[in-house]
């Protein structure tokens, strides 16, 4: 049985030039999986539990993404109908394969945009903390909104609502300047529950910088002048010597 759900966080304003998709393997104990994207040629490299593929670019805004395990399609295909970056999260709930499509956000220059996604089926509703600050509650398959943070190292944790002790905690997560990041809560089912922190995007000019004006090349120009002067001098000397010799 397949349940495909779509979480589209972020507005169309976050649309990017092309469609890119990556796969996060969140099936505890599951075999390695690959992402196949229509119009992208080769599938991604295989990844194991807790790992993500690189983003794969589609040839058009409309694309179909499938998860492939041992050469066979896992679950149904997921249709993508708008430009942007997406993460396909493959997880398992009992015998059910759940594939969730999440839209990834763009960065804020000089700051960190940060959010959390709940993909650990054995934890019900979870309270999310960044450092000591509670940033919200999430049910399974839900995503928080991106928040804007000062870049720093911070601890992230989840706990059951109303409890003090964290269920899962990770310290020194780097909130990188100029990036959007997502912390995925994954696991259980035989694997330890924990966070997988991925960068969704980074502030980056799209064109290469123009850091040369040709001065090293133009330094060659005086060589022509030097050659001309040398030629004139040699001609003059040769002419004078020849004239003196013929007068004798």
């Amino acid at each position, binding site marked *: 049985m397949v349940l495909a759900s779509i979480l589209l966080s972020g507005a169309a304003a976050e649309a990017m030039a092309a469609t890119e998709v990556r796969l996060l393997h969140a099936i505890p104990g599951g075999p390695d999986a690959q992402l196949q994207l229509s119009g992208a040629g080769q599938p991604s490299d295989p990844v194991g539990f807790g790992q993500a593929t690189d983003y794969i670019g589609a040839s058009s805004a409309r694309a179909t993404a499938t998860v492939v395990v041992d050469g066979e399609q896992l679950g149904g295909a997921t249709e993508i109908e708008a430009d942007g970056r997406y993460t396909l999260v493959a997880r398992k709930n009992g015998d059910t394969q759940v594939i969730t499509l999440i839209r990834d956000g763009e960065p804020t220059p000089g700051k960190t945009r940060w959010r959390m996604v709940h993909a650990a089926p054995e934890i019900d509703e979870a309270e999310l903390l960044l450092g000591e600050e509670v940033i919200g509650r999430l049910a399974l398959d839900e995503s928080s909104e991106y928040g804007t943070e000062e870049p720093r190292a911070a601890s992230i944790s989840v706990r059951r609502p109303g409890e003090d002790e964290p269920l899962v905690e990770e310290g020194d997560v780097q909130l990188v300047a100029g*990036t959007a990041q997502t912390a995925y809560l994954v696991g259980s089912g035989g694997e330890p529950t924990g966070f997988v922190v991925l960068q969704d995007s980074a502030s980056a000019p799209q064109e290469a910088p123009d850091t040369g004006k040709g001065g090293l090349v133009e330094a060659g120009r005086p060589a022509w002048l030097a050659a001309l002067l040398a030629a004139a001098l040699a001609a003059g000397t040769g002419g004078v010597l020849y004239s003196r010799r013929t007068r004798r």
Partner: protein
Amino acid sequence: MRRRARLGLLAAAGLPAIGAATIVLLLSGADQGSRSEPARALAAPSELSRAAAVQSGPPELTALPSRRPAPPSQISIPSAGIEAVVEPVAARDGAMRVPDVGRAGWYEAGPRPGEAGRAVIIGHLDRREGPGLFARVPSLDPGSEIAVTDRRGERHRYEVVGSAQVEKERFPTEEVYGGSHSPGGSPSSVLVLVTCGGPFEEGEGYRDNVLLFARAAPRAS
């Protein structure tokens, strides 16, 4: 007789002239070639990936400071004779604005040197009149030291681990600025220097960029 004398004069003046010009051009040509086009080949994708996959040293030796570093103000590369002011630069019309000649430019929308992520600093390979601030950056060897001093006076030291020459038309944005790699829980501070390289064409500029990747150097104990 007069015609013979003219031919003699022509030979006596012309042959030394041709010889002298040829020698000068040959000598200057060898010099120009080594300066205008660094002896580098375009990086294969695997070579670029290897150079860009910069990892920090042991965490206990390269631990990031507890407070956020200040923006950079000075860059020093002793082996290249570089000592220059760093000014913040932003992107404009899709490309990073280049700094004034003689200064390096730090991409202010990204990480600061000394903190997690890829801090990018650019500089001119040359200007109209001759070599630029980063003229010797393409020839830096792995292990070369780079120090960036921030506005609070703290020095952030890096060591070169690799470089790659890439066509500007295929500029590898992800490798330079990051964007899809997992920061995980391990601190990693990377410095990327960018300048021009490859053949130069008037009106078109340089065909390539040279990228230099450096990792945070172990902290002095």
